[in-house]
């Protein structure tokens, strides 16, 4: 279970001047929001700027440090924050800092291929509930083994995108060549391992960049390397790569990630309390499967690791269909489980509806509502929309769960006085509520009940077909 802090404990380490620079009225108010992880501690600027608070700051940072450390890479405004987890199960509180998805490329790809991949990362956008879902950055791999060649590609990537990136090689010389070029962009270094730890740890210190520790399939080595970097080099900006295995070993990968996260949070193991890196791109090492099959399996592996504790992912596929489930799943699993995804039930006006405008009904699951609203707006229709209280569930499950019923619809039509608002006395049900139509017709007597499409994107087509001016009255009347 999550360890919750007391605001009083936190308050002790704040300036206690109630200066208001953080936007809160008092230091106590800031403390309360801080323990809820609702504000970043950096908002208390005096604490970070005034040297007299240095000791308090140190203590406070130690106190509020989550069991999985927050690690940053890249530079503002495109800086990425990963980790920062307080709980194993999201229902216990919430998961913070969405897992970034980094797309890989390497230094032996053709110019065209590089451009295609970087453009894809820059331009991918999927709009969902008014939010833009985007990819986060690039993982640059050294395949050539030539330091200068790698550095060249790194600087090329820097020119083509402002997004953060990871530089990937186990060779310290190659990494250093890239760091000379890229240090100002604060890349994540991949990776320290059993063999190169001294040199790569030094690079992390010298160039002040966070570093991944890689020990595939060997949690003991992983933990030993963390301790060595912490104690020997004072490095604390660490990401862990426990190894991602494909095929039948997917389940062992999931098991290992679960064990590490469990040990960090429930076991309070300070040497494992760092973000985890998953590499679904390993699926592409397979020489036999088709590209489509690999993109399919990579997507499944990525969604699995998204659910099972990966705080950062490196993927290879740039097929929209393969990325889409992962990026949507990320958006879902990182929502706050304490907030119901619902809108207020009621009568909504879309555009400027009048007595001849269609009357639609839907449920109050936020996603359902926004989809219907967007689609009606896109179709440039004016419409009345009754939103029934389905306790934040979709129409389909609300019909099955008896939360979207004829009774509720009939009551709403009465309550919102729709007889006065529309003359046509016609109500359009969502397609998934088709089985209510008979019952509702009996209840509403002189009303017509239409069964609309299942998907609101078909509303326009549906209205164009059924909304005949002769029946519903035209504007010229």
């Amino acid at each position, binding site marked *: 279970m999550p360890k919750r802090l007391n605001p009083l404990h936190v308050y002790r380490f704040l300036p206690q001047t109630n200066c208001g620079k953080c936007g809160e009225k008092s230091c106590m108010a800031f403390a309360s929001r801080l323990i809820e992880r609702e504000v970043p501690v950096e908002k208390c600027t005096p604490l970070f700027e005034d040297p007299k608070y240095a000791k308090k700051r140190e203590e406070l940072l130690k106190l509020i440090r989550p069991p999985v450390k927050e690690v940053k890479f890249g530079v503002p405004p495109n800086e990425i924050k990963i980790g920062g987890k307080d709980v194993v199960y999201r229902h216990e509180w919430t998961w913070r800092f969405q897992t970034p998805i980094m797309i890989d490329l390497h230094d032996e790809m053709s110019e065209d291929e590089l451009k295609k991949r970087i453009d894809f990362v820059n331009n991918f956008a999927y709009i969902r509930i008014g939010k833009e879902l985007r990819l986060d950055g690039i993982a640059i791999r050294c395949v050539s083994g030539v330091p200068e060649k790698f*550095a060249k590609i790194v600087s090329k990537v820097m020119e083509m995108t402002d997004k953060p990136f990871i530089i990937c090689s186990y060779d310290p010389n190659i990494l250093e060549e890239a760091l000379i070029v890229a240090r100002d962009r604060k890349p994540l270094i991949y990776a320290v391992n059993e063999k190169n730890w001294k040199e790569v740890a030094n690079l992390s210190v010298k160039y002040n960049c966070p570093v991944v520790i890689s020990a595939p399939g060997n949690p003991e080595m992983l*933990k030993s390397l963390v301790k060595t970097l912490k104690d020997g080099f004072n490095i604390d900006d660490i990401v862990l790569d426990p190894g991602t295995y494909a095929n039948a070993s997917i389940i062992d990968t999931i*098991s290992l990630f679960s064990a590490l996260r469990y040990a960090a949070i429930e076991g309070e193991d300070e040497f494992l309390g760092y973000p985890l890196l998953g590499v679904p791109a390993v699926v592409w090492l397979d020489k036999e499967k088709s590209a489509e099959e690999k993109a399919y399996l990579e997507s499944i592996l990525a969604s699995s690791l998204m659910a099972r504790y990966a705080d950062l992912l490196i993927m290879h596929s740039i097929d929209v269909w393969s990325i889409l489930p992962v990026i949507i799943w990320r958006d879902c699993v990182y929502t706050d489980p304490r907030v119901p995804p619902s809108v207020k039930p009621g009568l909504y006006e879309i555009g400027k509806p009048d007595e001849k405008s269609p009357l639609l009904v839907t449920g109050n699951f936020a996603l359902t509502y926004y989809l219907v609203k967007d689609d009606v707006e896109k179709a440039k229709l004016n419409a009345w929309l009754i939103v029934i209280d389905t306790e934040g569930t979709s129409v389909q499950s609300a019909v099955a769960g008896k939360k979207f019923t004829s009774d509720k619809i009939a009551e709403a039509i009465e309550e919102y006085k729709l007889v006065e608002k529309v003359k046509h006395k016609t109500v359009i049900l969502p397609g998934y509520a088709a089985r209510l139509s008979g019952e509702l017709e009996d209840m509403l007597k002189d009303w017509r009940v239409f069964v609309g499409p299942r998907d609101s994107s078909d509303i326009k087509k549906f209205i164009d077909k059924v909304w005949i001016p002769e029946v519903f009255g035209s504007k010229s009347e």
Partner: protein
Amino acid sequence: MEERRKKALKDILNMISESEEIELTDVIIDADELTISFVPPQAPQMPGYFKLSLEPLTGAGKVEFLVEASPYGVRLLSIPTAPTPEKPKIVELIKVKFEFPTLPFTGKIAEVTIGATKSEGGTRSHTIKIGGSASMPFFLFAETPPNPMAASLDVFDMPAAPRPVKDVYGDAINDPAEWARVAVQKFGANLISFHLISTDPGIKDTPVSEAVKAVENVLQAVKVPLIIGGSGNPEKDTKLFTKLAEVTSGERVVFNSVTLDMDIEKTVKPIKEHGHDLIALAFIDINQAKDLCRKSMEAGLPKNRLILDPTTGALGYGIEYSFSIMERIRLSALLGEEVLQVPMCSASSNAWAAREARSKDPALGPRKIRGPLWEASTAIIALLAGTDLFMMLHPKAMHTVRMFAEALRKARKPLSEIRYENWVSSKF
């Protein structure tokens, strides 16, 4: 003297112009300004690079610049800050032990058997056993669960299915028995979920007698175990299940489903008497799930004949609520909540309600792969939260779940013994 110096400099410059790369060491340049001229590469998109290292005589350490040169000009790509000394503080790796976490679980999920062979009083070719875990899913460091998860293929009693599913079944979709046969013979299903959706009074209100015939046809057509789904109408389903339980007596069918608004006692009685299993369907609510399981058990159904369906929302359409409710149910069961110690199931075919699964928009990629991936992703999320049984529409999605099940069936090797291929420097 001046002449000799000029000549030496000229020689050096000649040397530079003839070579690709030069390195000057132990050279002291005493100058206020140093100009390096060069011929830029011809192709503007491929600028030339060279590294410039300067080391002050004070011994403060070398600083390096990368210089980029193109026909458009020259720029320094990195401005060095004061270099940090490169002295490793330690020389030996500090070794620490890692132990896999011990878990507080005391409970165990009941095992449910689906189907009955001839020797068990039925006519099925095999049985399927699910459940039995004593830990969270894929906590393989704690246990390898005794039974891997199972996945059925859906068959409906009317030709209702999304386009990509219709495409793989072709005409078979018009006849439930044929649909089931193709699912088993062509797509390797080892379990069929037959949904009598047309019996819904709101759809076709197909009478019980016709539904019985349809079920008998499917039982004839395939020898795999069967899940039978009703209409979703509480009164109709009690009637339907009562009759079907009798005619399929001994086959250990799974009836799908009982809900809180049904007459639970009346529904459970024939299912129990004829030796069948039952799915209890709750709607993303742990208290409802508990209540329903308790009532079903109180009506006489033993724990090893009950399966809980907490409802699966499609990916993007509420799946996170299903995911968290399933995790809560499973955790609660493992921590000792007896009524929840039953296997869980998921109608992952709900995934097809998602616009992203069905959309014809070519920008989202081909529907024939996007659709099954959506269903498979939805199922895998439910699987990671503890689901034991899946009802699925698309054969490809069903096989993805089976891939996880097959992996569980294989003997475990520690990861340290599996070769880890170097993905970093591989060309793909």
